[in-house]
Protein backbone atom coordinates (compact mmCIF):
# COMPACT_ATOMS: atom_id res chain seq x y z
CA UNK A 1 0.00 0.00 0.00
CA UNK A 2 2.86 2.32 0.87
CA UNK A 3 4.41 1.51 -2.48
CA UNK A 4 1.28 2.46 -4.36
CA UNK A 5 1.03 5.77 -2.54
CA UNK A 6 4.66 6.55 -3.32
CA UNK A 7 4.24 5.77 -6.98
CA UNK A 8 1.18 8.04 -7.10
CA UNK A 9 3.06 10.93 -5.59
CA UNK A 10 5.96 10.41 -7.96
CA UNK A 11 3.66 10.42 -10.97
CA UNK A 12 1.86 13.55 -9.92
CA UNK A 13 5.06 15.34 -9.07
CA UNK A 14 6.46 14.62 -12.50
CA UNK A 15 4.21 16.95 -14.49
CA UNK A 16 3.42 20.65 -14.18
CA UNK A 17 0.70 21.77 -11.79
CA UNK A 18 -1.23 23.66 -14.45
CA UNK A 19 -1.13 22.60 -18.07
CA UNK A 20 -2.80 24.67 -20.81
CA UNK A 21 -2.94 23.16 -24.29
CA UNK A 22 -4.12 24.93 -27.43
CA UNK A 23 -6.31 27.44 -25.61
CA UNK A 24 -8.16 29.67 -28.07
CA UNK A 25 -10.89 32.18 -27.40
CA UNK A 26 -12.98 34.01 -29.94
CA UNK A 27 -15.53 36.72 -29.18
CA UNK A 28 -17.64 36.81 -32.32
CA UNK A 29 -15.15 37.59 -35.07
CA UNK A 30 -12.43 38.73 -32.69
CA UNK A 31 -9.73 36.26 -31.73
CA UNK A 32 -8.54 37.08 -28.22
CA UNK A 33 -6.36 33.99 -27.80
CA UNK A 34 -4.86 31.70 -30.39
CA UNK A 35 -3.63 28.22 -29.45
CA UNK A 36 -1.82 29.15 -26.26
CA UNK A 37 0.17 26.45 -24.45
CA UNK A 38 1.50 27.10 -20.97
CA UNK A 39 2.94 24.92 -18.20
CA UNK A 40 3.10 26.24 -14.68
CA UNK A 41 5.41 24.22 -12.45
CA UNK A 42 4.79 23.54 -8.78
CA UNK A 43 5.76 26.26 -6.35
CA UNK A 44 6.83 28.78 -8.93
CA UNK A 45 5.67 32.33 -9.48
CA UNK A 46 4.63 32.50 -13.11
CA UNK A 47 3.88 35.87 -14.66
CA UNK A 48 2.02 36.48 -17.90
CA UNK A 49 2.75 39.87 -19.45
CA UNK A 50 1.86 41.56 -22.68
CA UNK A 51 0.71 44.89 -24.09
CA UNK A 52 -2.90 46.04 -23.82
CA UNK A 53 -5.31 43.68 -25.53
CA UNK A 54 -2.77 40.86 -25.68
CA UNK A 55 -5.27 38.45 -24.12
CA UNK A 56 -3.83 38.27 -20.60
CA UNK A 57 -7.12 38.80 -18.80
CA UNK A 58 -8.92 36.44 -21.16
CA UNK A 59 -6.40 33.69 -20.42
CA UNK A 60 -6.71 34.39 -16.73
CA UNK A 61 -10.52 34.24 -16.82
CA UNK A 62 -10.43 30.94 -18.68
CA UNK A 63 -8.20 29.37 -16.04
CA UNK A 64 -10.49 30.74 -13.30
CA UNK A 65 -13.63 29.38 -14.98
CA UNK A 66 -15.15 32.82 -15.53
CA UNK A 67 -14.89 32.31 -19.31
CA UNK A 68 -15.08 29.14 -21.38
CA UNK A 69 -12.37 28.51 -23.96
CA UNK A 70 -13.51 28.15 -27.57
CA UNK A 71 -10.87 25.45 -28.03
CA UNK A 72 -8.21 23.74 -26.00
CA UNK A 73 -7.92 22.23 -22.59
CA UNK A 74 -6.80 23.30 -19.13
CA UNK A 75 -5.78 20.74 -16.52
CA UNK A 76 -4.83 21.10 -12.89
CA UNK A 77 -2.64 18.00 -12.47
CA UNK A 78 -4.88 15.31 -13.93
CA UNK A 79 -8.16 17.13 -13.39
CA UNK A 80 -9.67 18.85 -16.40
CA UNK A 81 -10.85 22.29 -15.31
CA UNK A 82 -11.72 23.92 -18.63
CA UNK A 83 -15.50 24.15 -18.95
CA UNK A 84 -16.17 24.04 -15.20
CA UNK A 85 -18.07 26.94 -13.57
CA UNK A 86 -15.98 29.19 -11.33
CA UNK A 87 -17.18 27.71 -8.03
CA UNK A 88 -16.10 24.23 -9.15
CA UNK A 89 -12.74 25.51 -10.35
CA UNK A 90 -12.38 27.01 -6.87
CA UNK A 91 -13.28 23.67 -5.30
CA UNK A 92 -10.61 21.99 -7.44
CA UNK A 93 -7.95 24.13 -5.75
CA UNK A 94 -7.66 27.33 -7.77
CA UNK A 95 -8.34 30.66 -6.06
CA UNK A 96 -8.38 34.01 -7.76
CA UNK A 97 -8.06 37.61 -6.73
CA UNK A 98 -9.71 40.08 -9.05
CA UNK A 99 -8.21 42.99 -10.96
CA UNK A 100 -10.84 45.33 -9.58
CA UNK A 101 -11.31 44.97 -5.88
CA UNK A 102 -14.32 42.73 -5.37
CA UNK A 103 -14.78 42.60 -1.63
CA UNK A 104 -17.94 41.76 0.30
CA UNK A 105 -18.95 45.29 1.27
CA UNK A 106 -21.07 44.45 4.31
CA UNK A 107 -18.28 42.56 6.07
CA UNK A 108 -15.10 43.22 8.00
CA UNK A 109 -11.64 42.39 6.65
CA UNK A 110 -11.49 39.16 8.65
CA UNK A 111 -14.98 38.10 7.57
CA UNK A 112 -14.05 38.63 3.93
CA UNK A 113 -11.03 36.41 4.37
CA UNK A 114 -13.14 33.92 6.35
CA UNK A 115 -15.54 33.48 3.41
CA UNK A 116 -12.51 32.67 1.29
CA UNK A 117 -11.19 30.24 3.90
CA UNK A 118 -14.41 28.27 4.32
CA UNK A 119 -15.20 25.14 2.30
CA UNK A 120 -18.46 25.80 0.50
CA UNK A 121 -18.84 22.44 -1.22
CA UNK A 122 -21.74 21.40 1.05
CA UNK A 123 -24.47 23.66 2.41
CA UNK A 124 -24.76 22.07 5.88
CA UNK A 125 -28.06 23.79 6.68
CA UNK A 126 -28.47 22.03 10.02
CA UNK A 127 -25.08 23.29 11.12
CA UNK A 128 -26.18 26.82 10.23
CA UNK A 129 -29.54 26.58 12.00
CA UNK A 130 -28.41 24.97 15.22
CA UNK A 131 -24.68 25.73 15.41
CA UNK A 132 -24.19 21.98 15.87
CA UNK A 133 -22.76 19.22 13.67
CA UNK A 134 -19.13 20.29 13.59
CA UNK A 135 -19.91 24.03 13.67
CA UNK A 136 -17.09 24.93 16.04
CA UNK A 137 -14.58 22.56 14.41
CA UNK A 138 -15.24 23.81 10.86
CA UNK A 139 -15.06 27.41 11.98
CA UNK A 140 -11.91 26.79 14.01
CA UNK A 141 -10.17 25.26 10.99
CA UNK A 142 -11.29 28.12 8.76
CA UNK A 143 -10.13 30.73 11.27
CA UNK A 144 -6.70 29.06 11.38
CA UNK A 145 -6.50 29.48 7.58
CA UNK A 146 -7.68 33.10 7.95
CA UNK A 147 -4.89 33.72 10.46
CA UNK A 148 -2.20 32.30 8.16
CA UNK A 149 -3.46 34.28 5.15
CA UNK A 150 -3.77 37.53 7.08
CA UNK A 151 -0.28 37.16 8.47
CA UNK A 152 1.25 36.27 5.10
CA UNK A 153 -0.28 39.41 3.62
CA UNK A 154 0.65 41.50 6.65
CA UNK A 155 -2.83 42.90 7.25
CA UNK A 156 -3.33 41.73 10.85
CA UNK A 157 -3.94 45.23 12.24
CA UNK A 158 -6.85 45.70 9.82
CA UNK A 159 -8.65 42.46 10.71
CA UNK A 160 -11.58 43.93 12.63
CA UNK A 161 -12.24 46.90 10.32
CA UNK A 162 -15.13 47.05 7.87
CA UNK A 163 -13.69 46.88 4.35
CA UNK A 164 -15.32 50.22 3.56
CA UNK A 165 -12.92 51.93 6.00
CA UNK A 166 -9.56 50.85 4.53
CA UNK A 167 -7.54 52.28 1.64
CA UNK A 168 -7.56 50.97 -1.91
CA UNK A 169 -4.10 49.45 -1.55
CA UNK A 170 -5.19 47.69 1.64
CA UNK A 171 -8.33 46.41 -0.06
CA UNK A 172 -6.16 44.79 -2.71
CA UNK A 173 -4.16 43.00 -0.04
CA UNK A 174 -7.42 41.83 1.57
CA UNK A 175 -8.64 40.49 -1.77
CA UNK A 176 -5.39 38.56 -2.16
CA UNK A 177 -5.63 37.28 1.41
CA UNK A 178 -9.17 36.09 0.73
CA UNK A 179 -8.00 34.08 -2.29
CA UNK A 180 -5.02 32.78 -0.36
CA UNK A 181 -7.12 31.72 2.65
CA UNK A 182 -8.64 28.87 0.67
CA UNK A 183 -5.08 27.48 0.73
CA UNK A 184 -5.32 26.74 -2.96
CA UNK A 185 -2.82 24.74 -4.97
CA UNK A 186 -2.81 27.54 -7.54
CA UNK A 187 -3.29 31.19 -6.66
CA UNK A 188 -4.35 33.45 -9.52
CA UNK A 189 -3.65 37.16 -9.25
CA UNK A 190 -5.10 39.54 -11.83
CA UNK A 191 -2.89 42.65 -12.11
CA UNK A 192 -2.01 42.63 -8.42
CA UNK A 193 0.21 45.73 -8.68
CA UNK A 194 -2.29 47.91 -10.57
CA UNK A 195 -2.96 51.16 -8.75
CA UNK A 196 -0.37 50.51 -6.05
CA UNK A 197 2.40 52.94 -5.14
CA UNK A 198 6.12 52.02 -4.86
CA UNK A 199 6.27 50.90 -1.20
CA UNK A 200 2.98 49.03 -1.56
CA UNK A 201 4.39 47.15 -4.55
CA UNK A 202 7.44 46.18 -2.50
CA UNK A 203 5.17 44.91 0.29
CA UNK A 204 3.11 42.99 -2.24
CA UNK A 205 6.17 41.36 -3.84
CA UNK A 206 7.36 40.28 -0.40
CA UNK A 207 3.95 38.83 0.41
CA UNK A 208 3.76 36.89 -2.87
CA UNK A 209 7.24 35.43 -2.29
CA UNK A 210 6.20 34.34 1.19
CA UNK A 211 3.15 32.67 -0.33
CA UNK A 212 5.35 30.81 -2.81
CA UNK A 213 7.80 29.80 -0.08
CA UNK A 214 4.87 28.47 1.96
CA UNK A 215 4.20 26.03 -0.89
CA UNK A 216 1.61 27.71 -3.12
CA UNK A 217 2.02 28.08 -6.86
CA UNK A 218 1.22 31.55 -8.16
CA UNK A 219 0.06 32.56 -11.63
CA UNK A 220 -0.34 36.28 -12.22
CA UNK A 221 -1.07 38.51 -15.16
CA UNK A 222 0.38 41.97 -14.97
CA UNK A 223 0.93 45.20 -16.81
CA UNK A 224 3.91 46.28 -14.79
CA UNK A 225 6.80 44.52 -16.59
CA UNK A 226 9.36 45.64 -14.07
CA UNK A 227 7.42 44.14 -11.18
CA UNK A 228 7.03 40.82 -13.02
CA UNK A 229 10.69 40.60 -14.06
CA UNK A 230 11.84 41.12 -10.49
CA UNK A 231 9.29 38.85 -8.85
CA UNK A 232 8.61 35.91 -11.16
CA UNK A 233 10.52 32.66 -11.65
CA UNK A 234 8.89 32.08 -15.02
CA UNK A 235 7.52 34.62 -17.49
CA UNK A 236 5.30 34.13 -20.54
CA UNK A 237 4.59 36.93 -23.01
CA UNK A 238 1.38 37.29 -24.96
CA UNK A 239 1.02 39.49 -28.02
CA UNK A 240 -2.20 39.74 -30.02
CA UNK A 241 -3.44 36.55 -28.42
CA UNK A 242 -0.35 34.45 -29.20
CA UNK A 243 2.41 33.38 -26.89
CA UNK A 244 5.62 34.89 -28.23
CA UNK A 245 8.02 34.04 -25.40
CA UNK A 246 8.19 31.70 -22.42
CA UNK A 247 11.09 31.20 -20.02
CA UNK A 248 13.06 32.73 -17.18
CA UNK A 249 12.96 36.54 -16.85
CA UNK A 250 16.49 36.68 -18.39
CA UNK A 251 15.53 34.56 -21.39
CA UNK A 252 12.40 36.61 -21.99
CA UNK A 253 14.17 39.92 -21.62
CA UNK A 254 16.61 38.92 -24.37
CA UNK A 255 13.97 37.66 -26.78
CA UNK A 256 13.82 39.47 -30.13
CA UNK A 257 10.09 38.95 -30.44
CA UNK A 258 9.44 40.52 -27.05
CA UNK A 259 11.57 43.57 -27.74
CA UNK A 260 9.74 43.98 -31.00
CA UNK A 261 6.32 43.64 -29.40
CA UNK A 262 7.06 46.13 -26.66
CA UNK A 263 9.09 48.71 -28.55
CA UNK A 264 7.58 48.23 -31.94
CA UNK A 265 9.75 48.05 -35.00
Amino acid at each position, binding site marked *: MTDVAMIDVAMIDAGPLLRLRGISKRFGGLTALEAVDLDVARQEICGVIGPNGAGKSTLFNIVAGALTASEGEARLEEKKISGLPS*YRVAAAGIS*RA*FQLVNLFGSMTVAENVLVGAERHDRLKIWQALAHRGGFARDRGEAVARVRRAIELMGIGPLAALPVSRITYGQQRLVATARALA*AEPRLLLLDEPAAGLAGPEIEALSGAIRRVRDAGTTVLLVEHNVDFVMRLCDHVAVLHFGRKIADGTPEEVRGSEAVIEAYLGR
Partner: protein
Amino acid sequence: MSTPLDFLERPAWTARRVAIWGALIFGLALLPWAITNGYYLTLATNVIITMVLTLSLNFTIGRIGLFSLAHSAFLGVGAYLAAILAQRHGVSPWATLPIAVAGSMAAAALIGVPVLRLRGMFLSVATLSFGLFAEVFARQATDVTGGAYGIIGIPPLVLFGHSLRGTGMYELSLVVLLVVALMFENIRTSRFGRAIAASRDNEPAAGAAGIDIARTRLAGFVLSAAVAGSAGWLYTFFHLTLNPYVLSLDITFVWLFVVLVGGLGSMRGVALATILLGIGPELLGFASTQQVLISGVLVLIVVLLAPRGLGGLVEDLERKFFPAPPAHD
Protein backbone atom coordinates in the same frame (compact mmCIF):
# COMPACT_ATOMS: atom_id res chain seq x y z
CA MET B 1 2.99 37.55 16.14
CA SER B 2 -0.51 36.26 16.21
CA THR B 3 -3.40 38.26 14.86
CA PRO B 4 -6.27 38.57 17.32
CA LEU B 5 -9.20 36.96 15.56
CA ASP B 6 -11.18 36.05 18.67
CA PHE B 7 -14.09 38.09 17.41
CA LEU B 8 -14.55 35.58 14.60
CA GLU B 9 -14.89 32.78 17.10
CA ARG B 10 -16.75 34.69 19.76
CA PRO B 11 -19.69 32.54 20.84
CA ALA B 12 -22.88 33.71 19.14
CA TRP B 13 -24.65 33.46 22.49
CA THR B 14 -22.78 35.45 25.08
CA ALA B 15 -24.12 35.64 28.64
CA ARG B 16 -25.35 39.17 28.02
CA ARG B 17 -27.31 38.22 24.91
CA VAL B 18 -28.84 35.17 26.54
CA ALA B 19 -29.90 37.38 29.46
CA ILE B 20 -31.47 39.98 27.16
CA TRP B 21 -33.28 37.39 25.05
CA GLY B 22 -34.36 35.49 28.17
CA ALA B 23 -35.81 38.59 29.82
CA LEU B 24 -37.60 39.53 26.61
CA ILE B 25 -39.12 36.08 26.17
CA PHE B 26 -40.09 35.85 29.83
CA GLY B 27 -41.83 39.22 29.63
CA LEU B 28 -43.62 38.31 26.40
CA ALA B 29 -44.71 34.93 27.80
CA LEU B 30 -46.32 36.67 30.79
CA LEU B 31 -48.03 39.31 28.66
CA PRO B 32 -51.45 37.55 28.52
CA TRP B 33 -51.76 37.85 32.30
CA ALA B 34 -50.97 41.55 32.11
CA ILE B 35 -53.57 42.32 29.47
CA THR B 36 -56.97 41.09 30.52
CA ASN B 37 -58.78 42.55 27.54
CA GLY B 38 -59.38 39.82 24.93
CA TYR B 39 -59.13 42.30 22.08
CA TYR B 40 -55.59 43.25 23.01
CA LEU B 41 -54.60 39.61 23.34
CA THR B 42 -55.91 38.97 19.82
CA LEU B 43 -53.94 41.96 18.60
CA ALA B 44 -50.77 40.73 20.33
CA THR B 45 -51.14 37.25 18.82
CA ASN B 46 -51.68 38.79 15.40
CA VAL B 47 -48.52 40.84 15.78
CA ILE B 48 -46.50 37.76 16.74
CA ILE B 49 -47.76 35.70 13.80
CA THR B 50 -47.08 38.65 11.50
CA MET B 51 -43.58 38.87 12.94
CA VAL B 52 -42.86 35.26 11.95
CA LEU B 53 -43.74 36.25 8.40
CA THR B 54 -41.89 39.58 8.36
CA LEU B 55 -38.73 37.96 9.73
CA SER B 56 -38.92 35.46 6.89
CA LEU B 57 -39.47 38.23 4.35
CA ASN B 58 -36.62 40.22 5.91
CA PHE B 59 -34.32 37.23 5.42
CA THR B 60 -35.24 36.95 1.74
CA ILE B 61 -35.08 40.67 0.94
CA GLY B 62 -32.43 41.89 3.36
CA ARG B 63 -30.06 38.93 3.59
CA ILE B 64 -30.43 37.01 0.32
CA GLY B 65 -31.13 40.25 -1.54
CA LEU B 66 -34.18 38.95 -3.43
CA PHE B 67 -37.05 41.40 -3.62
CA SER B 68 -39.72 38.72 -3.28
CA LEU B 69 -43.43 39.51 -3.50
CA ALA B 70 -44.40 35.83 -3.27
CA HIS B 71 -44.37 35.50 0.49
CA SER B 72 -48.14 35.92 0.77
CA ALA B 73 -48.41 32.87 -1.47
CA PHE B 74 -46.02 30.85 0.73
CA LEU B 75 -48.05 31.82 3.79
CA GLY B 76 -51.23 31.00 1.87
CA VAL B 77 -50.04 27.55 0.82
CA GLY B 78 -49.30 26.69 4.46
CA ALA B 79 -52.55 28.19 5.72
CA TYR B 80 -54.76 26.53 3.11
CA LEU B 81 -53.06 23.14 3.37
CA ALA B 82 -53.60 23.17 7.13
CA ALA B 83 -57.22 24.35 6.85
CA ILE B 84 -58.23 21.92 4.10
CA LEU B 85 -56.59 18.88 5.69
CA ALA B 86 -57.91 19.60 9.19
CA GLN B 87 -61.41 20.70 8.24
CA ARG B 88 -62.25 18.43 5.30
CA HIS B 89 -60.06 15.38 5.75
CA GLY B 90 -60.00 15.06 9.50
CA VAL B 91 -56.19 15.22 9.72
CA SER B 92 -55.01 16.09 13.22
CA PRO B 93 -54.29 19.86 13.34
CA TRP B 94 -50.83 19.18 14.80
CA ALA B 95 -50.00 16.78 11.95
CA THR B 96 -50.74 19.54 9.44
CA LEU B 97 -47.72 21.58 10.59
CA PRO B 98 -45.04 19.53 8.81
CA ILE B 99 -47.31 19.23 5.77
CA ALA B 100 -47.96 22.98 5.65
CA VAL B 101 -44.25 23.73 5.98
CA ALA B 102 -43.30 21.14 3.36
CA GLY B 103 -45.97 22.49 1.00
CA SER B 104 -44.62 26.04 1.24
CA MET B 105 -41.09 24.75 0.70
CA ALA B 106 -42.18 22.79 -2.36
CA ALA B 107 -43.89 25.90 -3.77
CA ALA B 108 -40.74 27.94 -3.20
CA ALA B 109 -38.53 25.31 -4.81
CA LEU B 110 -40.89 25.09 -7.78
CA ILE B 111 -40.93 28.80 -8.52
CA GLY B 112 -37.41 29.34 -7.17
CA VAL B 113 -35.60 27.26 -9.78
CA PRO B 114 -36.71 29.36 -12.77
CA VAL B 115 -37.30 32.66 -10.97
CA LEU B 116 -34.05 32.98 -9.02
CA ARG B 117 -32.18 33.29 -12.31
CA LEU B 118 -33.84 36.69 -12.68
CA ARG B 119 -32.52 39.83 -11.07
CA GLY B 120 -34.00 42.99 -9.59
CA MET B 121 -37.24 44.16 -11.08
CA PHE B 122 -37.74 41.03 -13.19
CA LEU B 123 -37.55 38.84 -10.14
CA SER B 124 -40.04 41.04 -8.31
CA VAL B 125 -42.50 40.91 -11.20
CA ALA B 126 -42.15 37.13 -11.47
CA THR B 127 -42.77 36.60 -7.75
CA LEU B 128 -45.62 39.11 -7.84
CA SER B 129 -47.29 37.09 -10.60
CA PHE B 130 -46.98 34.00 -8.45
CA GLY B 131 -48.56 35.88 -5.53
CA LEU B 132 -51.40 37.09 -7.74
CA PHE B 133 -51.87 33.61 -9.17
CA ALA B 134 -52.20 32.20 -5.66
CA GLU B 135 -54.88 34.74 -4.78
CA VAL B 136 -56.85 34.13 -7.98
CA PHE B 137 -56.58 30.38 -7.45
CA ALA B 138 -57.87 30.70 -3.89
CA ARG B 139 -60.82 32.77 -5.11
CA GLN B 140 -61.71 30.69 -8.16
CA ALA B 141 -60.97 27.08 -7.20
CA THR B 142 -64.12 26.92 -5.10
CA ASP B 143 -64.07 23.12 -4.78
CA VAL B 144 -60.63 23.13 -3.21
CA THR B 145 -60.41 26.42 -1.33
CA GLY B 146 -64.02 27.36 -0.71
CA GLY B 147 -63.63 30.32 -3.07
CA ALA B 148 -64.25 33.84 -1.82
CA TYR B 149 -66.08 32.60 1.25
CA GLY B 150 -63.14 30.46 2.18
CA ILE B 151 -63.14 27.75 4.80
CA ILE B 152 -64.94 28.00 8.11
CA GLY B 153 -65.31 25.71 11.10
CA ILE B 154 -61.66 24.68 11.20
CA PRO B 155 -61.08 22.48 14.28
CA PRO B 156 -58.78 24.10 16.84
CA LEU B 157 -55.47 22.72 18.03
CA VAL B 158 -55.92 20.62 21.15
CA LEU B 159 -53.29 20.24 23.85
CA PHE B 160 -53.81 18.01 26.90
CA GLY B 161 -57.52 17.95 26.22
CA HIS B 162 -57.84 21.72 25.97
CA SER B 163 -58.51 23.67 22.79
CA LEU B 164 -55.83 26.24 22.11
CA ARG B 165 -57.56 29.60 22.00
CA GLY B 166 -56.66 33.01 23.38
CA THR B 167 -53.71 32.62 25.69
CA GLY B 168 -52.88 29.14 24.39
CA MET B 169 -52.58 30.31 20.78
CA TYR B 170 -50.60 33.34 21.92
CA GLU B 171 -48.05 31.15 23.72
CA LEU B 172 -47.82 28.71 20.81
CA SER B 173 -47.22 31.57 18.38
CA LEU B 174 -44.54 32.90 20.72
CA VAL B 175 -42.78 29.52 20.71
CA VAL B 176 -42.80 29.42 16.90
CA LEU B 177 -41.52 33.01 16.77
CA LEU B 178 -38.75 32.14 19.19
CA VAL B 179 -37.62 29.12 17.18
CA VAL B 180 -37.68 31.17 13.97
CA ALA B 181 -35.78 34.09 15.48
CA LEU B 182 -33.10 31.80 16.94
CA MET B 183 -32.80 30.06 13.60
CA PHE B 184 -32.28 33.26 11.64
CA GLU B 185 -29.89 34.59 14.26
CA ASN B 186 -27.84 31.39 14.07
CA ILE B 187 -27.77 31.48 10.28
CA ARG B 188 -26.43 35.03 10.33
CA THR B 189 -23.27 33.89 12.12
CA SER B 190 -22.85 30.63 10.20
CA ARG B 191 -20.90 29.73 7.07
CA PHE B 192 -24.20 29.35 5.17
CA GLY B 193 -25.22 32.83 6.34
CA ARG B 194 -21.92 34.30 5.21
CA ALA B 195 -22.23 32.54 1.85
CA ILE B 196 -25.67 34.12 1.44
CA ALA B 197 -24.39 37.59 2.34
CA ALA B 198 -21.34 37.13 0.09
CA SER B 199 -23.56 36.18 -2.86
CA ARG B 200 -25.64 39.29 -2.22
CA ASP B 201 -22.61 41.59 -1.84
CA ASN B 202 -20.60 40.43 -4.84
CA GLU B 203 -21.49 37.56 -7.16
CA PRO B 204 -18.20 37.10 -9.05
CA ALA B 205 -16.21 37.10 -5.82
CA ALA B 206 -18.63 34.68 -4.16
CA GLY B 207 -18.27 32.31 -7.12
CA ALA B 208 -14.48 32.58 -6.96
CA ALA B 209 -14.63 31.70 -3.25
CA GLY B 210 -16.24 28.40 -4.22
CA ILE B 211 -19.84 29.35 -3.42
CA ASP B 212 -22.50 27.82 -5.66
CA ILE B 213 -24.61 30.97 -5.72
CA ALA B 214 -27.73 29.46 -7.30
CA ARG B 215 -27.84 26.58 -4.82
CA THR B 216 -27.14 28.84 -1.83
CA ARG B 217 -29.88 31.29 -2.79
CA LEU B 218 -32.39 28.58 -3.51
CA ALA B 219 -31.75 26.95 -0.13
CA GLY B 220 -32.22 30.31 1.61
CA PHE B 221 -35.38 31.04 -0.36
CA VAL B 222 -36.89 27.63 0.43
CA LEU B 223 -35.96 28.02 4.09
CA SER B 224 -37.62 31.41 4.19
CA ALA B 225 -40.74 29.91 2.58
CA ALA B 226 -40.79 27.20 5.25
CA VAL B 227 -41.00 29.91 7.88
CA ALA B 228 -43.75 31.70 5.94
CA GLY B 229 -45.61 28.36 5.79
CA SER B 230 -45.39 27.99 9.56
CA ALA B 231 -46.83 31.52 9.90
CA GLY B 232 -49.69 30.39 7.65
CA TRP B 233 -50.26 27.33 9.80
CA LEU B 234 -50.47 29.54 12.90
CA TYR B 235 -52.82 31.93 11.09
CA THR B 236 -55.24 29.12 10.25
CA PHE B 237 -55.50 27.76 13.78
CA PHE B 238 -55.61 31.23 15.30
CA HIS B 239 -58.54 32.49 13.21
CA LEU B 240 -60.16 29.07 12.60
CA THR B 241 -61.52 30.53 9.38
CA LEU B 242 -59.58 31.25 6.22
CA ASN B 243 -60.39 33.26 3.12
CA PRO B 244 -58.42 34.67 0.18
CA TYR B 245 -57.99 38.02 1.93
CA VAL B 246 -54.82 36.58 3.49
CA LEU B 247 -53.34 36.46 -0.04
CA SER B 248 -54.30 40.00 -1.03
CA LEU B 249 -51.77 42.53 -2.27
CA ASP B 250 -52.70 44.97 0.53
CA ILE B 251 -51.27 42.61 3.09
CA THR B 252 -48.19 41.83 0.99
CA PHE B 253 -47.41 45.52 0.78
CA VAL B 254 -47.92 46.11 4.49
CA TRP B 255 -45.32 43.38 5.17
CA LEU B 256 -43.01 44.95 2.64
CA PHE B 257 -43.39 48.32 4.36
CA VAL B 258 -42.61 46.68 7.69
CA VAL B 259 -39.33 45.29 6.33
CA LEU B 260 -38.40 48.64 4.76
CA VAL B 261 -39.27 50.63 7.90
CA GLY B 262 -37.41 48.10 10.03
CA GLY B 263 -34.30 48.32 7.89
CA LEU B 264 -33.28 45.62 5.41
CA GLY B 265 -31.56 42.71 7.11
CA SER B 266 -32.00 43.98 10.67
CA MET B 267 -34.00 41.50 12.77
CA ARG B 268 -34.40 43.91 15.66
CA GLY B 269 -35.54 46.71 13.41
CA VAL B 270 -38.06 44.53 11.60
CA ALA B 271 -39.42 43.13 14.87
CA LEU B 272 -39.84 46.68 16.15
CA ALA B 273 -41.50 47.82 12.93
CA THR B 274 -43.88 44.85 13.05
CA ILE B 275 -45.01 45.90 16.50
CA LEU B 276 -45.34 49.59 15.60
CA LEU B 277 -47.16 49.03 12.32
CA GLY B 278 -49.20 46.17 13.76
CA ILE B 279 -50.42 47.93 16.86
CA GLY B 280 -50.19 51.62 15.99
CA PRO B 281 -52.99 51.95 13.44
CA GLU B 282 -55.29 49.66 15.45
CA LEU B 283 -54.82 51.59 18.66
CA LEU B 284 -55.29 54.87 16.85
CA GLY B 285 -58.55 53.53 15.46
CA PHE B 286 -57.75 53.37 11.76
CA ALA B 287 -59.48 50.84 9.55
CA SER B 288 -57.37 48.23 7.81
CA THR B 289 -57.77 49.99 4.45
CA GLN B 290 -56.18 53.08 5.90
CA GLN B 291 -53.33 50.99 7.26
CA VAL B 292 -51.71 50.77 3.84
CA LEU B 293 -51.81 54.55 3.54
CA ILE B 294 -50.33 55.08 7.00
CA SER B 295 -47.64 52.49 6.35
CA GLY B 296 -46.79 54.23 3.10
CA VAL B 297 -46.36 57.58 4.85
CA LEU B 298 -44.21 55.90 7.51
CA VAL B 299 -41.97 54.38 4.84
CA LEU B 300 -41.49 57.82 3.32
CA ILE B 301 -40.56 59.32 6.68
CA VAL B 302 -38.13 56.52 7.45
CA VAL B 303 -36.49 56.60 4.04
CA LEU B 304 -35.97 60.35 4.37
CA LEU B 305 -34.87 60.49 8.00
CA ALA B 306 -33.34 57.08 8.72
CA PRO B 307 -32.22 55.34 5.53
CA ARG B 308 -31.11 52.26 7.47
CA GLY B 309 -34.52 51.96 9.07
CA LEU B 310 -35.39 51.45 12.71
CA GLY B 311 -32.67 48.80 12.94
CA GLY B 312 -30.09 51.42 11.98
CA LEU B 313 -31.48 53.85 14.56
CA VAL B 314 -31.34 51.22 17.30
CA GLU B 315 -27.76 50.38 16.32
CA ASP B 316 -26.73 54.04 16.48
CA LEU B 317 -28.34 54.45 19.89
CA GLU B 318 -26.69 51.28 21.13
CA ARG B 319 -23.29 52.47 19.96
CA LYS B 320 -23.86 55.77 21.73
CA PHE B 321 -24.93 54.35 25.08
CA PHE B 322 -23.14 50.98 25.13
CA PRO B 323 -19.91 51.50 23.20
CA ALA B 324 -18.45 48.14 22.15
CA PRO B 325 -15.04 47.27 23.61
CA PRO B 326 -12.24 47.64 21.04
CA ALA B 327 -11.74 44.48 18.99
CA HIS B 328 -8.18 44.15 20.21
CA ASP B 329 -6.07 46.22 22.53
